[in-house]
């Protein structure tokens, strides 16, 4: 291990428009070591690896590879250096075979023709290495499971002579057995002298696989430690930083029966045995890391992917939502997480967006939309939610993310649902709007609505919840009251053994 480190970057900064994604990142990775990179969402991990893999270029900072100063200006340049990246989303071509995917962009050729037998032979070796059957070489990638596709991405990264392998949350979508196989591959590669950067949210697994850990927070690397000096709790503390936890919210939950209840809810392969009850006037949070199954739970309650086991109850009666529309008819108001795709009519005015889905309430004789009432309701909502807009006739596409989000939220408030399920209510929203949305959620609860908030934003989960369930490995594993500490919750979500309750 003498000589220069495989990779040494320092002072890396990157700005996207007004957002400083990376302020100052330093990273030194030695050949033959597994170097974990951790940090909360938005800490800058993704931006850093995009820069290392040539997908983005840094605004400032220096990069040295094996002691030589280099500029990584493109993905091709990165590949030429031997930097191979396995992205969180498998970057594969569904209609091409596994062998073709592995060699796309660096085909083995003979006289201008792709040398299929040579590629096939090499891929067979790689498949063997990562534990997939050799016959997969000529199978179209689109027919494989997501986990298998992930493994193919790793094979793809290994096809070149990788000297630095970056793995961006490779374990998030793998099962335990598949993770064992992955770790085996990672160890073998490290032993052969490859430097490995391993990004993961599952802090517990770092103790099995990583040698050193670098923690990122707010666009900066705050330090690097040998894994032996750390614990899950310690890493969680470093990730969260010296943030003072907010005091418990002033909010009293009235006694009463559960209005929304998930009893042993499960969906084959995604989540299982989820038990959550929300009373009227209560805000219950459901927090989990990416891949924990928390997003899928919300989708099931919405009826997008109906659950395969367990039951769902609204006001004591069992319901089986088959679609978002059906869920709404059953009395479950929804705020989907992907607003651009699922929640908004971008080019339509605010009033249209608010009245959509409530047209029965706002129509004359159930046939014609009552334009005057539509406008009145829209104006009332704009005022109540402090939406910043000159007029209710403004199209939603002209508004900021936070204001657009309020409009979608307003649609749910028109008919005062008894049960409201919100998925990532403040994703992509600025801080000021976030506060207002949190206030609206609290007001709704005070008016008697049972609110379930599904979020991967840790401070938000703690701040708005009367009770907070943590989801890990597809099931609810811990429950916290108001005013839980961020470190405790993060440690529970990331798999600390000692779970605080």
């Amino acid at each position, binding site marked *: 291990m003498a000589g220069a480190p495989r990779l040494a970057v320092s002072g890396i900064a990157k700005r996207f428009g007004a957002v400083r994604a990376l302020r100052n990142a330093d990273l030194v990775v030695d050949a033959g070591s597994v170097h974990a990179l951790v940090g909360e969402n938005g800490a800058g991990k993704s931006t850093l690896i995009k820069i290392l893999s040539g997908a983005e270029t840094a605004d400032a900072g220096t990069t040295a590879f094996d002691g030589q100063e280099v500029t990584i200006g493109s993905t091709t340049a990165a590949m030429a250096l031997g930097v191979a990246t396995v992205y969180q989303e498998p970057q594969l071509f569904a209609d091409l075979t596994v062998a073709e995917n592995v060699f796309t962009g660096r085909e083995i050729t003979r006289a201008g023709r792709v040398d299929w037998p040579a590629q096939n032979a090499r891929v067979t070796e790689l498949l063997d290495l990562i534990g997939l059957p050799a016959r997969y070489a000529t199978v179209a990638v689109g027919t494989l499971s997501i986990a298998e596709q992930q493994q193919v991405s790793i094979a793809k990264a290994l096809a070149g002579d990788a000297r630095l392998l970056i793995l961006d949350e490779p374990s998030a979508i793998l099962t335990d057995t598949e993770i064992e196989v992955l770790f*085996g591959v990672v160890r073998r590669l490290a032993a052969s002298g490859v430097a490995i950067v391993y990004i993961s949210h599952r802090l517990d697994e770092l103790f099995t696989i990583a040698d050193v850990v670098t923690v990122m927070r707010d666009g900066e690397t705050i330090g690097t430690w040998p894994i032996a000096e750390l614990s899950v709790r310690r890493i969680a503390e470093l990730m969260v930083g010296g943030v003072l936890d907010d005091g418990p919210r002033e909010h009293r939950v009235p006694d009463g029966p559960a209005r929304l209840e998930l009893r042993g809810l499960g969906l084959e392969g995604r989540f299982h045995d989820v038990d959550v009850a929300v009373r009227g006037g209560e805000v219950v949070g459901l927090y989990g890391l990416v891949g924990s199954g928390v997003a899928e739970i919300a989708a099931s309650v919405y009826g997008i992917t109906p659950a395969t086991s367990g039951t769902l109850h609204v006001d004591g009666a069992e319901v089986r939502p088959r679609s978002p529309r059906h869920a709404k008819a059953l009395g479950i108001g929804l705020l989907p997480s992907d607003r651009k795709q699922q929640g908004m009519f971008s080019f339509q005015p605010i009033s249209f967006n608010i009245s959509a889905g409530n047209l029965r309430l706002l129509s004359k004789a159930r046939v014609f939309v009552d334009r005057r009432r539509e406008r009145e309701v829209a104006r009332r909502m704009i005022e109540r939610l402090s939406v910043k807009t000159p007029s209710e006739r403004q199209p939603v596409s002209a508004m900021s993310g936070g204001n657009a989000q309020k409009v979608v939220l307003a649609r749910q408030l028109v008919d005062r649902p008894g049960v409201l399920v919100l998925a990532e209510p403040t994703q992509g929203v600025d801080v000021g709007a976030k506060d207002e949305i949190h206030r609206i959620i609290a007001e709704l609860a005070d008016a008697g609505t049972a609110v379930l908030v599904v979020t991967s934003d840790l401070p938000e989960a703690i701040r708005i919840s009367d009770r907070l369930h943590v989801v890990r490995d597809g099931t609810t594993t811990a429950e916290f009251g108001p005013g839980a500490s961020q470190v405790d919750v993060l440690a529970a979500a990331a798999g600390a053994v000692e779970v605080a309750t």
Partner: protein
Amino acid sequence: MSAPALARPAPAKPGRVLPFPVTGQEVVLLVVIAVLWAALAVTTPAFATEGSIVPLLVAMTPIALIGIGMTVVIVTGGIDVSVGSIVMVCAVVIAKAMVGSGIPLPAAVALGMAVGALLGLVNGALIAYGRVQAIIITFGTLNLFRFAGLQVFGSATVEGIPGTLAPFGRGDAGRTLGVPHSFVVLLVVAAIAWYYLRHTPGGRHFFAIGGDADAARLAGISVRARIVLGYVVTGLLAGVAACFVIAQGTSSLAASVGSGLELSVIAAVVIGGTSITGGRGSVLGTLLGALLVQTVRTGVTQLGWPSQLSDLFVGVFIIVAVGADLLRQRRRPTGKRTT
């Protein structure tokens, strides 16, 4: 999920290193065409004769030839609805040149290819660098090219076109030993395209781009250059097709030439199994698709049925083909998560 590691996987069978070159859809197409031909041969005795089959093969050549370029374009996830207008512009330029200065056949073909490639370059550059959806751009250029073509036409039709291009026509000059020359040209171009798309890195990259353009860029493929190339080749083949169209026509050329051709071409490509969402398609499928479309047209005429019926049948085939494609995509586990 497969069992990991331990059991060492059996070595792959040598030889079979690519999926079988003929897809299920192509086999179905072959069967449908065979059934149609058999049915037509029984009902209209005139069908199964050289006097009927040869014109059918000649008539399908412009559609199939442009279809080869269109296959490449659609595989990358694009589309070119301006090909009818490109044929029109090329045809009028060639016709005027032949009437005016009596250029020989090679010059006429070269002129068509040059004009077609230039118009394809306009399409490709706007789409690859302007990042606007292909259907919008080419819908715009459809009208632009048509306008330009009408300007070249002037007000009248082009009259008195010499027989320079007769070797590509329907007449005796257009065949050797009964085989139409234009059909031979089609087969040669198809064979080259098939080999290029299936066996060279450059060809495979078209499929990668259609599968996931971002992933293709990350894999080091020059996505824009590939996309431009697809449109240029389509324009170039439309230029060759324009020569065939002139050769198949009379000595006069009307401004309506090429009008609506894009729909037949896209129909042939889609019926041939090329996925309209990109990433999958084949030259063989397109040839069969063009043959099916032309068989329906010829058959309906020979049976003496109203010609609108051929539109009905082609429409049904398109919907069945697209439906089959969608079903296939829904059956597979989703490759992308939504988060």
